[in-house]
């Protein structure tokens, strides 16, 4: 299916939603034990000076997401379900349908349950809900903690998770402990982190892999109504890439990160019609690469610090506004890197809910600094044309059911 067909099909869905504003919110099937859900969104991106987060300089319609899910229960404690997902963010995703999640979940009691299959990856407040437009006013989550080019990589993993909730007086603790692996490929947006480093001849790395991902998340639902604090930890083991070395394409350049760790501390406070959030994230790793016989082994640290503060306010049934400031910094940038070592992102959003199923959003960004503004075959930002700051306008409409 080509781009035009997808956009037309999407708008047909949206029009269906526009014309039936009070339709049911979910679609039970048969005796009601099977639930169907999903969404389709289509947006437009305009970058003024740089291509960020994707090739959008001058405007692009290549910005959409779609998903369909089904789930059912079996007996008293078992639930099974799954969701397929496709996205296009410039040249990333290319509307390829992927399995987003597919789980068998056995909830023994509120204190303990297990979930296995393809499981959403818990990281920070919104790591499991990266593309759920319906639960926030923002088009893009703050890129300082939720890189938009890593959506297809960091949304879920294959493996298992134990979870539960433990009462603690007037509050409670929710926990998740998980392990598995994330399938990787050069098509994924995460490859741009390597391609941007200039290791490989265009279009970039030809193979990516990892051995495992392990982690956990602890949420304290505090006695203060609406306030929760979250700590998330995860670690990738043996994150490796291969491809033709840019300086000598006959040689394979192999890189490996033995451990790549993510530490995220988060707070969210819901107060009346307000939602305030703040998160801080540190990544830490050591990269080792070599391209025998022309390049001996080289070691170097890799990592960044990111944080943001956001506020959102529901004005009435129809409108919600939001704003955030995000800050991203290369922890190991070169001394003369200047604006290439940081990214400061101011964002302002407006959401309009036409109905229970159809919403519209418009969002403006001013981005100072070019850290994680890539220059690759899919997201070109040639050095001569790269500006230290850029603006981004995002318009998006979503139909959900």
């Amino acid at each position: 299916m080509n781009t035009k067909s997808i956009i037309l099909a999407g708008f047909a869905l949206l029009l269906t939603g526009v014309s039936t504003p009070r339709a049911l919110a979910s679609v039970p099937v048969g005796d009601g034990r099977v639930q169907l859900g999903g969404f389709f969104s289509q947006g437009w991106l305009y970058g003024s000076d740089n291509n960020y987060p994707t090739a959008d300089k001058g405007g692009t319609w290549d910005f959409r997401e779609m998903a369909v899910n089904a789930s059912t229960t079996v007996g008293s404690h078992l639930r099974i379900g799954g969701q397929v997902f496709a996205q296009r963010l410039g040249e990333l995703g290319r509307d390829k349908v992927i399995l987003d999640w597919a789980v068998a979940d056995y909830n023994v009691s509120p204190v303990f349950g297990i979930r296995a299959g393809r499981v959403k990856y818990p990281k920070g407040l919104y790591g499991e809900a990266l593309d759920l437009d319906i639960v926030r006013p923002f088009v893009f989550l703050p890129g300082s903690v939720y890189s938009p080019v890593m959506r297809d990589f960091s949304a879920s993993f294959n493996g298992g998770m134990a979870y539960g909730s433990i009462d603690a007086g007037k509050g409670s603790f929710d926990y998740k402990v998980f392990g598995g692996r994330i399938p990787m490929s050069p098509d994924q947006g995460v490859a741009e982190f390597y391609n941007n480093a200039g290791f490989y001849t265009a279009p970039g790395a030809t193979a990516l892999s990892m051995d495992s991902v392990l982690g956990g998340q602890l949420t304290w639902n505090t006695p203060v109504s609406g306030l929760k604090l979250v700590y998330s930890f995860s670690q990738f083991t043996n994150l490796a890439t291969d491809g033709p070395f840019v300086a000598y394409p006959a040689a394979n350049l192999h890189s490996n990160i033995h451990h790549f760790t993510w530490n995220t501390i988060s707070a969210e406070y819901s107060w009346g019609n307000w939602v305030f959030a703040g998160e801080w994230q540190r990544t830490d790793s050591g990269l080792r690469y070599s391209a025998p016989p022309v390049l001996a082994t080289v070691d170097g640290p890799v990592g960044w610090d990111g944080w943001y503060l956001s506020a959102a306010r529901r004005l009435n049934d129809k409108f919600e506004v939001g704003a955030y400031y995000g800050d991203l910094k290369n922890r190991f940038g070169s001394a003369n890197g200047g604006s290439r070592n940081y990214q400061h992102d101011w964002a302002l959003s407006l959401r309009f809910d036409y109905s229970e199923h159809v919403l519209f959003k418009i969002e403006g960004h001013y981005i100072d600094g070019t850290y994680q503004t890539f220059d690759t075959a899919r997201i070109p930002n040639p050095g001569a044309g790269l500006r230290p700051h850029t603006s981004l306008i995002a318009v998006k409409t979503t139909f959900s059911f």
Partner: protein
Amino acid sequence: MKIISIRPFALLAACTLVCTAGFAAPALIGNKNVAAEKLDAATVKSIFLGKKVAWDGAGRITLAVLKGGPVAEEYFKSAVGMAASAFNNHWRRLAMTGGGTAPKSFEKEEDLRKFVAETPGAVGFVDRANADDSVAILTPAP
């Protein structure tokens, strides 16, 4: 004198309580097969947040909620500590990420009550005035 000066405020407070109760006085209702279940406030919150999915002796819990309105606002605020919009977002998020089965939602209290009456394991809430003997009225311990 002191008693006389307090009386108007006491009357005002009583009137406020009565008026508020008249506006929205939700009652927790369940299918009659859950009438013997032990419930306290923490358990009810756990059920409405999707953490407890099965009764101790009455099978799978099926949650039924009103889509909106003063009864829903009052119930979510008092039993779950959330505004209705926050509750809806909580469940949208769970249902769309593989974390739970979304509640059945109803526009009308009569439809919700009928569903609860006909569905073993179902639990929900309606205005107390709309709860009849087709369902069990559940009173959680504090």
